[in-house]
């Protein structure tokens, strides 16, 4: 339930002699409750764009508005509050806190939000169950597989019911079945609660869940399409996963 608009974003990384264009003149408007999928080759700027939308990167040029507020004009503390209260992040490399158990990681955001412990516990347990991690609440990240860690990271982003979810490759390490479950969970949130979803992925299996497809290359948006058909593109689509999908549906 958040509207995001960016205009003429430019972000250049300087690495020694070379300049890398992370974002090159990106303009984009995402309506409340939209489900957007960012795709494109590695290094095309997906992560950079997500970070910019979440106020983690300050673009060199251009403006980002979240519900009318220009985030480049916000102070660090205001931005932190924005992220804490309204945005759920799923980072590409999970970034769980190693000394906290799966459940404590999920509770982390709620805890800094000041949610009381009983409610935290309830919500964390419920979401962990939904992502298929029931019984693993007390495990430390190091005791979880990559896919399990990824699901904890997703659970952490979802549990506080943010208005905007920015997910970077949330299914990269998941098998098809788990990936699909997760996507359904996200889709559910998007539909029922009008959560705005922006999701970066290489995974063709899950692109179809999104109604809007944005493709990037070299920091530019090269296509931006609203798909009219079924969201479940992967059903008919990818031959590699087709047999698996038959079992599920």
């Amino acid at each position, binding site marked *: 339930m958040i509207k995001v608009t960016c205009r003429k974003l430019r972000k250049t990384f300087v690495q020694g002699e070379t300049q890398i264009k992370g974002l090159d003149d990106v303009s984009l408007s995402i309506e409340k409750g939209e489900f957007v999928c960012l795709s494109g080759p590695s290094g095309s700027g997906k992560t950079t764009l997500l970070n910019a939308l979440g106020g*983690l990167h300050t673009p060199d040029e251009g403006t980002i508005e979240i519900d009318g507020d220009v985030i480049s004009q916000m102070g660090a503390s205001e931005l932190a509050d924005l992220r804490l209260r309204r945005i759920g992040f799923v980072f590409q490399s999970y970034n769980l806190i190693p*000394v906290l158990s799966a459940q404590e990681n999920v509770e982390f955001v709620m805890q800094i939000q000041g949610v009381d412990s009983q409610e935290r516990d309830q919500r964390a347990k419920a979401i962990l169950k939904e992502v298929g991690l029931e019984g693993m609440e007390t495990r430390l990240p190091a005791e979880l597989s990559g896919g399990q860690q990824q699901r904890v990271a997703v659970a952490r982003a979802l549990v506080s019911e943010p208005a905007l979810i920015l997910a970077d490759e949330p299914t990269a390490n998941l098998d098809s079945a788990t990936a699909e479950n997760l996507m359904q969970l996200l889709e559910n949130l998007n539909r029922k609660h009008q959560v705005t979803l922006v999701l970066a992925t290489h995974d063709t299996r899950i692109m179809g869940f999104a109604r809007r497809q944005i493709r990037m290359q070299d920091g530019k948006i090269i296509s931006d399409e609203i798909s009219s058909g079924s969201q479940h593109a992967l059903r008919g689509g990818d031959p590699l996963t087709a047999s698996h999908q038959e079992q599920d549906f």
Partner: protein
Amino acid sequence: MNIELRLAWRNLWRHKKRTWITVAAMVFSNVLLVLMLSLQLGSYQMMIDNALGLFSGQIQIQHQDYLENPKFRDDIVHPQGLVNTLKQATDLETISSRGVTFALVSSASRSYGVQVVGVEPQSEPLVSTIPGLIIEGRYLQASSSKQNEDPVAEVVLGKVLARNLKVGLGDELTLLGSGRDGSFAAGVATVVGIFNSSLPALDRTMIQLPLDYFQHLFASENRASYVVLNTPTPLELTQLNATIAELLAQQRPDESLQVRDWDALQPGIRQAIQADLSSAAFMYGVLILLVAFSVMNTQLMSVLERTREFGTMMALGLKPWRLVKLIFLETTMMATLGMLLGAILGAMLTQYYHVVGFYYPGMEEMAAKFNLPERFYPDVTWFATFIGPIFVMIASIIAAIYPALKIRKLDPISAMRAV
């Protein structure tokens, strides 16, 4: 549990070895600090006890001119009254009055000029250790309280003087001198005891006799040269001094009486203490600094290796000051652990020396100067047990400022990209 507390606690035990090494550095220096300070304070206390306890006492109330120039006429009228008011005001029993003059003392074969001290046999043992240092015979006895009876003419004297005079127990000594009024004073007293103070100056030149006999002999009825007072806490006299000074001003405004504490009576002691303290303070400072650097190093490493997760937390919306708080919490936890363990072990070690005694190498010189035994027995005190560890704790927390400042410079994205 509060999230910072939980994180801090877990992080400490994430690198058990490193945490323990840092804590061990604190504990080691704390133990050292506690023991050394206890020994120092103990040795000061002992210096004071011995040097002052032997005879001069910790506090004297005198006529204001008496310290510079001890004249018979600069004395205190009705000392018993003063002693009684002092006892009431200070709650101390260890108070006694003395008369002091000089006289010629003769045995059958020899004569010497000596210091004659009139003491109250009952309360003198409370302010001086000489009554306990009798090696032959006994100390003076309180005269019977019957009125109109002549005071008992008995005397104790130092070992060396007894040898010089060639007198033993039961022998008689003749005293010749002048009374307070300038009259001729003469008397004969029996030797009842010989003391050995180990301080040649006293053993060679002092005789003691009952104050009432002294007053009778030197025509100084109802007068004393000064009043001696001892307290169990000679290192903290300010309050007591003030109380007594006020009392004197109220009750005896016209007599020009003055409180003299041991600092005034024996100025060398404080100088020795101060010299010793300031040389030790330097060493303590270096020790504390070393611990502080060790803490800084640990926390710096700990911040650097957590850059990534700190970045994550900030990206999730945690404000940097809460991470700063986290660093200080961790440091405080470590420092508290170091303080408690250090204080406990230090106190235990001190208690051990309290029982078996401690020999201070290099103390012989001071020992001889101030009449100290070579072995001494430090006390476990709250002050010595906690002051060092508290300083270490404060220094450790200050040392965490630099690592904590590193956090304020973190930017979530580059922190999350760190390895």
